[in-house]
């Protein structure tokens, strides 16, 4: 096979590293959106079904049913893109898996239990709409909700471990010994990463689902007084708005955690050049070796946020060896600002809704409110993706913070740019078709079609109609 091997372009490590990182980032960035749906949409279905069953509210029950149909399609795409990630862990980062797989792997093993639970009960829940009666049906949805939270915990704990590796010792050759699986899972970063991600998932789905209804109401004024649209907007929006202030509090804690545990990341996204007290908090701008240019600076605020006093000394990049600093500091800085900025914008939206509800028990009447809601969904997604850029790019050049460099983890296999191109094509198609599928479901429902019909996990429609012309 020697001749065949020589046909493959031989790849210098640096080239492979970039391709592997881009591929990982792209596929993860795609999966995480579907993962949010898997984590948070079940709660929305359960709330709607609860309301429906308690008040004999057909409209609410109907919403729960509709959402479960959309969930089915998105879960399927989530499952396949997640499987790709499991392969990629080994295909792209074999040296990392080989050295540390047994330290952090327990998290993924536990996640397996949650995946099973999720896959089994989503099928039972959807399948059960016509076959399981009353509250019993509602209860079959509860395990999906729990599995979403548990699944998020186990994966994110692994990521936290990459940021704050604990639960092992290194022997003379640099290999881990005396592993404590629980110590690895409950590392200091888990304490803020897990709640932050969980809340992000609820915000992405809450604002996202509400924005679908807001867009519908903007396009068609008749829908603005339609009860189903109002409820479809209100349930997810309320959940998201209630959680937003909590998220900002958790994010603030995360920032202080990073300042403590990962000074190079913190100095990177805040663009702090020189160690010292009285650090300025910069909003926007670009990061240069002389600090932030073209940004808005608030003197002393950065130190204050880290230690509640302007005297707090914050580590700057001058303390971090050149080859241990994160790359792309302007990108990091702007990604962080985007996340925080969007967080505050969403807080303002929450305050608007809260105020209107307090005064009038109704959503604000103006079109501007619907416009804001329509934008909130995409905003939450951008905030979440930006947060991951801060976390992952900020951790560089380490795959395991201060223990293993990413370049030492990457595979020697060839053709990664080719795989990357293929992944973009494949996922673009997948995403497009998924959007079409969702619109198809929505349109069929608008047209008064039977919402019990079809969809993955569910019984298929009557014989002869699957490929026939009947809609």
């Amino acid at each position, binding site marked *: *096979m*020697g001749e065949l*091997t020589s046909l*493959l372009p031989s790849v210098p490590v640096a080239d492979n590293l970039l391709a592997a990182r881009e591929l990982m980032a792209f596929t993860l960035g795609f999966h995480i959106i579907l993962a949010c749906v898997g984590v948070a949409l079940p709660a929305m279905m359960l709330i709607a079904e609860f309301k429906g069953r308690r008040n004999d509210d057909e409209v609410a029950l109907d919403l729960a049913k509709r959402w479960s149909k959309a969930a089915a*399609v998105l*879960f*399927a*795409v989530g*499952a*396949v893109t*997640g*499987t*790709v990630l*499991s*392969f990629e862990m*080994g*295909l792209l980062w*074999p*040296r990392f*898996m080989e050295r*540390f*797989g*047994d330290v952090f*792997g*327990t998290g*993924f*093993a536990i996640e*397996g*239990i949650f995946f*099973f*639970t999720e*896959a*089994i*009960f989503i*099928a039972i829940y959807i*399948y059960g709409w016509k*076959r399981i009666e009353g509250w019993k049906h509602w209860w079959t949805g509860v*395990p999906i909700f729990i599995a979403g939270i548990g699944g998020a915990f186990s994966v994110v704990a692994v990521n936290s471990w990459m940021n704050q590796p604990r639960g092992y010792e290194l022997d003379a050759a640099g290999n881990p010994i*005396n*592993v*404590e*699986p*629980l110590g690895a899972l409950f590392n200091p970063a888990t304490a803020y990463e897990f709640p932050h991600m969980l809340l992000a998932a609820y915000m992405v789905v809450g604002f996202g689902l509400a924005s679908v209804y807001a867009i519908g109401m903007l396009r068609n004024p008749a829908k603005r007084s339609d009860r189903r649209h109002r409820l479809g907007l209100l349930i997810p929006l309320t959940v998201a708005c209630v959680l937003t202030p909590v998220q900002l509090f958790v994010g603030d804690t995360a920032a202080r955690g990073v300042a403590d545990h990962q000074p190079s990341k913190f100095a990177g996204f805040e663009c702090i050049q020189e160690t010292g007290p009285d650090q300025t908090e910069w909003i926007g701008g670009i990061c240069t070796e002389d600090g932030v240019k073209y940004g808005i600076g608030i003197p002393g605020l950065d130190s204050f946020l880290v230690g509640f006093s302007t005297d707090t000394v914050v580590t700057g990049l001058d303390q971090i060896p050149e080859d241990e600093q994160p790359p792309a500091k302007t990108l990091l800085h702007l990604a962080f600002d985007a996340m925080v900025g969007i967080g505050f914008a969403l807080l303002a939206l929450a305050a608007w809704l809260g105020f209107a509800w307090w005064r009038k028990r109704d959503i604000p009447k103006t079109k501007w409110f619907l416009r804001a809601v329509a934008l909130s969904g995409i905003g939450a997604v951008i905030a979440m993706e930006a947060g991951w850029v801060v976390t992952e790019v900020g951790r560089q050049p380490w795959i395991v913070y201060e223990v293993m460099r990413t370049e030492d983890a990457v*595979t020697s296999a060839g053709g990664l740019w080719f795989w990357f191109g*293929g992944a973009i094509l494949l996922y673009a198609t997948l995403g497009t*078709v*998924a959007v*079409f*599928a969702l619109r198809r*479901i929505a349109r069929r429902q608008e047209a008064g079609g039977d919402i019990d019909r*079809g969809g*993955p*996990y569910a019984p*298929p429609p009557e*014989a002869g109609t*699957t*490929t*026939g*012309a*009947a809609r």
Partner: protein
Amino acid sequence: MSKADAVAAILVAGATLYAVFGGADFGAGVWELLALRSRDRALRERIERRVMLSLGPVWEANHVWLIFTLVVLWTGFPEAFAAIMETLYLPLALAALGIVLRGSGFAFGHTFTAAGAQRANAVFAVSSLITPFFLGCVVGAIAAGEVEAGGTGSPFGWVGPLPIVIGVLFVSSCAYVASVFLLDDCRRAGEDDLEAYFLKRSIAAAVLAGALAAAGLIVLRSDARAIFDGLFDEGLPFVIASALLGLLTLGGLVRGWSRALRPLAIGAVVAVVAGWAVAQYPYLLPETLTVDQGAGDDATLTALIVVFVLALAIVGPALVLLFRLAQRQALD
């Protein structure tokens, strides 16, 4: 039995469950693919519907066994996982591609109607060939010793007689298990003509899988002598069991048994996987890495065993509930 052996056994159990249940799902896709060629459109639609009915509720749960197996492999035996992934990246990436196409094809086939559904179903059907074939290549290449500890083997080592034969064997045994399952579902639902359709095909698939298994043995003898010897030494009881169960299923098919077919077919697959595992033992990667050498940290192995017991306790009853519901649906 050491802890490492216990975790290796868990790995084999996960792989077996995937081979049976995931395999049956793939096999159903293979039958859909073969039916695509049929001119009888009504028949084709009925087969598609039958596959949807039988797979609808269970397909994702069946798929999770693969995830479970992968995770246990990388956590319990990180070195072996890394070496396999780094060496056999081509067939593995293609298997993953098949999984993406297949899962999404299935989901979209359920969502769209008319031409959209047809296209999605075709993707589902074609990709049902890809994943089992390339996973078979991976297993064959490992057996042939193409994966060396450290991941230094050739990336094209899987292009050889043994991996290819095992790949084809995987596809045919998926089709075989699927046809037995589908046949049983048709019988319960009283679809007599479809039952007869799958009966004929079960017999053909059983004969084909048996022939390929025999051919596999011949290639095994020349390309993976250690495993061949193991099969006829420690593995012998399993080899005999699988041959007997295979013959019994075949006989049962011909004689029109009903209830016994499903367990017999499952038993035959279980016996093959178990025999293989015993024959390859103590090697994870013949002959450069043993189970003991490749095992991860002791505490991690304990954790994996605990997780497995928990999984059985939590997931087991839920899976039974789901399969019961799915069976009831087969009556719809």
